[in-house]
């Protein structure tokens, strides 16, 4: 249902941002699919598809606006369940090369980002360049896809967890170029 409702109205990044904006008490006290439901309610209201009174009463308060892509039909179910491609064209060469040491920026944006907190400020090694992908941070801020180079960056456990790291462990993330800075 969530997928169906989002068809044409919002994308996966905006949906994740929605679930992250649930009040902490709601988030922490809800089951996995309750969070989906609360997120759906939030976004339906934000997108003008229902009003709060309708959610409260469980009754329609009148005809709603049309969906961006028109009425959702059974025939479109396979289409919306199909996994999309996030690879995009990007102008200009990547800033970082395979094998290069990079640091995850120590930033704390108030909005949605896909840079996990536990790597921020830590140094890793670029292991792979995936090509350019749509950039979630830009999408949720309403600035479009702004494709960015995407890298797999690998961190040593000791770099992340210090002496408490389990020996012989590494962790990699997939990091968009703006998350990274060169290490001199």
């Amino acid at each position: 249902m969530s997928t169906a409702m989002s068809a044409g109205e919002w994308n996966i990044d905006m949906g994740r941002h929605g679930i992250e904006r649930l009040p902490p008490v709601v988030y922490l006290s809800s089951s996995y699919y309750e969070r989906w439901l609360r997120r759906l309610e939030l976004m339906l209201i934000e997108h003008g598809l229902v009003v709060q009174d309708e959610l409260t009463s469980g009754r329609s308060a009148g005809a709603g606006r049309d969906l961006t892509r028109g009425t959702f039909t059974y025939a479109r179910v396979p289409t919306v369940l199909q996994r999309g491609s996030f690879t995009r064209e990007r102008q200009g060469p990547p800033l970082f090369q395979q094998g290069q040491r990079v640091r995850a920026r120590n930033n704390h944006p108030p909005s949605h980002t896909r840079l996990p907190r536990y790597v921020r400020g830590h140094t890793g090694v670029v292991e792979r360049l995936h090509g350019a992908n749509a950039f979630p941070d830009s999408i949720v801020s309403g600035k479009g896809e702004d494709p960015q180079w995407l890298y797999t960056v690998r961190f040593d456990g000791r770099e992340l967890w210090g002496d408490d790291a389990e020996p012989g462990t590494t962790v990699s993330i997939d990091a968009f170029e703006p998350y990274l800075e060169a290490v001199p």
Partner: protein
Amino acid sequence: LIAVENTPEVHNVVVCTLCSCYPWDVLGLPPVWYKSDAYRSRTVKQPRTVLAEFGVHLEPTVAVRVWDSTAETRYLVLPMRPVGTDGWDEARLATLVDRNCMIGVGLPAGPGGADCWTASTTSAAWTASAPSSPSTTNPCSTSRGRAGRSP
């Protein structure tokens, strides 16, 4: 989708710390424990401990590589071929591999249905948080008895 290969030197395990990204178009819906705060937060910090709780006891000489699916790339673990399966074709080998193997929290069953790992009771902690996920209770029997395999 990227398949990461287990070797005698490296064991791979997949997690999504930011939400619950999962190759569901290949593996189906993720198990409940995969979406739990505990699995998501502990796997990056204590991967050996978490794996041991699933019954995967690795030698200290085997490096553990954790893949945090933070973007739209999805990861799938390619388990090591069990000893004693020389000459097995793809279809027969597939009967030894279950979902947990492909997340990296399980090892394939041995030929003839031998225990795929040493302890079947160690996953109790994960079973408790995931009562609707039968394959965490006894991954070995699930792996052998699974008739309808996801594509």
